[in-house]
């Protein structure tokens, strides 16, 4: 099973993102992207897409804080979610994953991307691979 990644400029550099849908309880967010970040211990839905849930997230209890790019990100626990991806054969694949909502109170840094962290890659045994043509994928260990 291979999930294709897309290279695009994010935060000043060409990085790899994956597109996905996310279901949080009975709410669905369709068609977002997340940065593959093996340096992050958590999977985080950041403010620019967290708002799609219409939750009063700044008044929800803070689960923990994390430093990201030198800024403190406040994390709220939005629980176990369903993440749905499209594989190279255009089949949908879904995974359960604990996801945090994240926001930075400094208003000029609301543009951080969603993060697919090491927690997800480890739990699903997905590797970040490159093929002979230079295309990148997430692939499950056989």
């Amino acid at each position, binding site marked *: 099973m291979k999930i294709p990644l*897309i*290279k*695009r*400029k994010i*935060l*000043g*550099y060409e990085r790899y*993102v994956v*597109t*996905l*849908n996310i279901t949080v309880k009975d709410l669905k967010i*369709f*068609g*977002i*992207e997340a*940065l593959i*970040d093996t*340096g*992050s211990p958590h999977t985080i839905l950041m*403010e*620019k*897409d967290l*708002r*799609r849930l219409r939750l009063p997230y700044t008044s929800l209890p803070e689960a923990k804080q994390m430093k*990201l*790019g030198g800024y403190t990100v406040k994390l709220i626990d939005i629980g176990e979610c369903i993440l*749905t*991806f*499209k594989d190279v054969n*255009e089949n*949908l694949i879904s995974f359960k994953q604990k996801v945090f909502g994240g926001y930075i109170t400094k*208003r000029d840094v*609301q*543009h951080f991307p969603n993060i697919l962290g090491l927690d997800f890659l480890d739990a699903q045994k997905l590797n970040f691979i490159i093929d002979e043509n230079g295309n990148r994928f997430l692939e499950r260990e056989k």
Partner: protein
Amino acid sequence: MNKELEILREIEKNIKFFNERYNEIKKKYKGKWIVIKNREIKLVGNDLDEIYEMIEKKKINIDGALIEYIPEKEEVWIL
């Protein structure tokens, strides 16, 4: 067609649109927030609050839309 699959294709097309026109978009919209939907720049705002206000007011379905900030200057962030 399956709606979920269709929307995943849509966000990919919007990312591709953004990639292909990155320099042009950067020049025109620096310091702004934009929303790309159906391979068009549908909304431009000064901040995220303004963007979501416009989305609400115009009742725009943002499934598969790319919401993006165009920085004023090129800075490489290390995460």
